[in-house]
């Protein structure tokens, strides 16, 4: 499935659209293995939906469904979000 694998960088726009902030540099702690990795360093698998996975253990970090009229986002683990105030 190599050619269907990307990384969290590709989610920058969708995360900004759903959560209102650019999260690719945000650290996320995996609920399964405890590793802290930036969202941009996570693996992204594209199938019927988009699944973001921990780069260390593969546990699910986020699941995103892009539907014609809405985006649905499910997050797992601990996301620490820090944004620059304008």
């Amino acid at each position, binding site marked *: 499935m190599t050619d269907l694998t990307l*990384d969290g960088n590709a989610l920058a726009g969708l995360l900004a659209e759903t959560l209102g902030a650019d999260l690719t540099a945000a650290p996320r702690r995996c609920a399964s293995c405890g590793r802290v990795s*930036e969202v941009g360093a996570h693996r992204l698998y594209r199938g019927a939906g988009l699944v973001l996975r921990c780069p260390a253990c593969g546990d699910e970090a986020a699941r995103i469904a892009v539907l014609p009229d809405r985006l649905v986002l499910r997050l797992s683990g601990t996301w620490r979000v820090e944004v620059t105030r304008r």
Partner: protein
Amino acid sequence: MREVVAETGRARTIVLEVRGWPGHVAGQHLDLRLTAEDGYQAQRSYSIASAPEDEVIALTVERIDDGEVSPFLVDEVRAGDELEVRGPVGGYFTWRVRDGGPLLLLAGGSGVVPLMAMLRHRAARNSTVDTRLLVSARSAVDLLYRGELRSLADGRGLALHETLTREQPVGWTGFARRMDAEMLMEVGPPALARPRVFVCGPTAFVERGADLLVGLGHAPAAIRAERFGPTGG
């Protein structure tokens, strides 16, 4: 859309003027949305090739033959066309002059695009930070930005290395094989110099680069990677 520049047989640079553009950081991308007459929408993310200091936004797009969006961008779009963009997006795979170096940039194919933004930014700021760029492509005609990279690498601390993995022209003096540990040792800088590393390309290239670098003693945290499409074309 202000201008279209042919880069290689498969790639074109699209130069955009974006109203209200808030400015970007080298390495970021933007999302481009196309809407068909029947309302069908396709959205793709493209790395920005221009420096933050440039007045216009340049994207270099490679055609994916069965893609939905890239053939339109590479073959159809004309100066004066309006495109819907959102961005800039991405805060992980970015570099500013003040972040410092040394820098090691590894590009597989069109993965050189966001790295080009970093190099243009570096040049615009007259930075001479030690920078090594390794570009891997199948053949010489696939190398993007060749002339500009040559002139940027003319002194000022930037060393340009190229490898052609499939086909080499007569008299080729660059590398002629897939990226390996020996090649990375020759390109440098060594792990002891603690370079910031940016690797961008197809997934297989990025994984290989990251594995080789860790094997050479580079800290995983110093290696930032961006896997480059195909994002469905």
